[in-house]
């Protein structure tokens, strides 16, 4: 039996469907990431699971029990979960009191609360702030208080809504480490919403992709990453190059695809004549100044239309009859003197191309 299950869950607001028929199963001990662009319904789904809102249709089950069956069940179930909101707020009280409140509401005695909170402020590195008013803390610190407050009650399920979205990179990686530590140390089920695919990959066992209120695809990390089901998922998982074409031949799953008159080879089982979208990651495309014979099946000539350097990497767009974005190291970009107008060859393997049927 899954620990958390949603059945035909719908949510509506002002006549709009925010969630459409969500059927989700999360097993005990699983770290599940809900990935999707902002406004996809991730927060709404988490709020329904935590019973902060009532669904328009459908049910949520916790360990087989309908969580909205009565107020008593609602409270009891909620006390087995903890939810860290996207923009966490702290109560106008000390850090200690903030972390202690969940335990207090569960009737834990003061001595045990003291022991528990003392341990947790060390974990979240807020020991020196223990008696400070939590309202005076910075964003990253507030986030840590919110996480501390949630894990203090030793929940069976931890719900995290964009835990690092509003933080600077340093605080964000601190929070991520903290979450990774919690996941490693404790047997806990986590459902985490994030728009950051790489964060999902770093922390989760399984991923569900939510787009426009629909659960477009759920699966393991590898599956989502390598075989997105549609364009939106492909974009989300970093397949920046999505180009439309038509299959012109297919022999033993090695197909040729016509894109604007240029032909590429790709591995797919789509038949001749099928209209497809070809998806490629920029990091799977190598750039060379001359045609190289390697295991790369495709080598397309083209001119660079723009280059942008970001940190140690350089992003270049090559016009090979269709635009193709490639990622090269800054060093090799400098060595090859890549700039606008340079003629180059874009090389990519047939297996690194993901082919989707267009509809």
């Amino acid at each position: 039996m899954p620990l958390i299950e949603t059945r035909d869950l719908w949510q509506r607001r002002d006549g709009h469907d925010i969630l459409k028929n969500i059927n989700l199963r999360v097993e005990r001990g699983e770290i599940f990431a809900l990935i999707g662009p902002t406004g996809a319904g991730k927060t709404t789904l988490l709020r329904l699971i935590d019973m902060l809102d009532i669904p328009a249709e459908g049910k949520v089950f916790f360990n087989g029990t309908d969580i909205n069956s009565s107020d008593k069940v609602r409270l009891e179930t909620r006390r087995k979960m903890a939810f860290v909101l996207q923009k966490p707020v702290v109560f106008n009280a000390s850090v200690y009191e903030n972390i202690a409140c969940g335990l207090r509401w569960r009737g834990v005695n003061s001595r045990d609360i003291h022991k528990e909170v003392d341990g947790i402020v060390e974990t979240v590195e807020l020991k020196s702030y223990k008696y400070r008013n939590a309202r005076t803390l910075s964003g990253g610190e507030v986030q840590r208080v919110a996480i501390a407050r949630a894990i203090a009650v030793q929940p069976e399920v931890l719900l995290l809504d964009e835990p690092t979205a509003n933080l600077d990179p340093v605080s964000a990686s601190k929070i991520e480490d903290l979450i990774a530590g919690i996941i490693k140390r404790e047997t806990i089920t986590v459902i985490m919403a994030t728009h950051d695919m790489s964060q999902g990959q770093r922390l989760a066992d399984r991923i569900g992709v939510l787009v426009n209120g629909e659960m477009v695809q759920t699966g393991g990390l590898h599956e989502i990453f390598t075989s997105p089901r549609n364009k939106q998922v492909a974009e989300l998982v970093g397949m920046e190059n999505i180009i439309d074409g038509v299959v012109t031949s297919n022999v033993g799953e090695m197909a040729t695809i016509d894109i604007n008159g240029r032909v590429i080879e790709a591995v797919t089982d789509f038949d001749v004549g099928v209209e497809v979208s070809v998806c490629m990651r920029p990091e799977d495309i190598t750039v060379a100044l001359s045609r190289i014979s390697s295991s790369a099946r495709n080598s397309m000539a083209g001119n660079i239309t723009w280059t942008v350097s970001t940190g140690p990497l350089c992003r270049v767009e090559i016009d090979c009859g269709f635009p193709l974005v490639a990622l090269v190291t800054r060093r090799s970009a400098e060595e090859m003197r890549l700039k606008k107008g340079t003629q180059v060859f874009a090389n990519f393997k047939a297996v690194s191309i993901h082919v989707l049927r267009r509809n």
Partner: protein
Amino acid sequence: MTELWNGLVKAVELIVTLDPEVMQIAGRSLMISVSSAVIGSVICIPVACLIHFNRFHGKRFLVSLIQTFYSVPTVAIGLFVFVFISRAGPLGGLGILFTPTAIVVGQVILITPILLGLTISALNSVDRAILDTARSLGASGWQMAVLVIKEARFAVMAAVIMGFGRAISEVGISLMVGGNIRGFTRVITTAISLETSKGDIELSLALGIILIFIALVVNIVMNRIQQR
């Protein structure tokens, strides 16, 4: 003009020398109005929570009704309470007419709308995310109410102080159901009105100064609270 000046000098003298009559009346006034504010708060804060946390039909109407009664005339309440507790009234058996208790009852009724209304708006001002957080951390209904009052504590305190201010400055109720009995139910406001009509300006002025001083303190405390 000299009369007023002499009166003022005498009044300050009465205050500085801690004149027994002045002190007694001021002390009684404080006692009665503090009691009204405390009793009113004990009743109104939980009721305000009930109204705030429950969704029911006509809630908005109820809240505007409460706000309408902020400025209910004190004599109207005096009359109303008088009718109830006079010997022939339905609560005449209690025998509380012309006692400090009667004044407290009247003042509690007087300040109930203010306490209710301002407490409800204080609770309203608490961020929804605070409620969601508390609920997600497993707070039950009344645990949430306690938390929200704590979060809005300064605004709730302001409501109580406003209630106290209204109670101590009213005269209609104290006069009608207290009876202005010397040494028993005479409070600052009733004493001022009586002594002024008797021509004893000094005593009136002294009590007036004390009343203004109390109002000033109340205002300073209010400002302090609202700045937090």
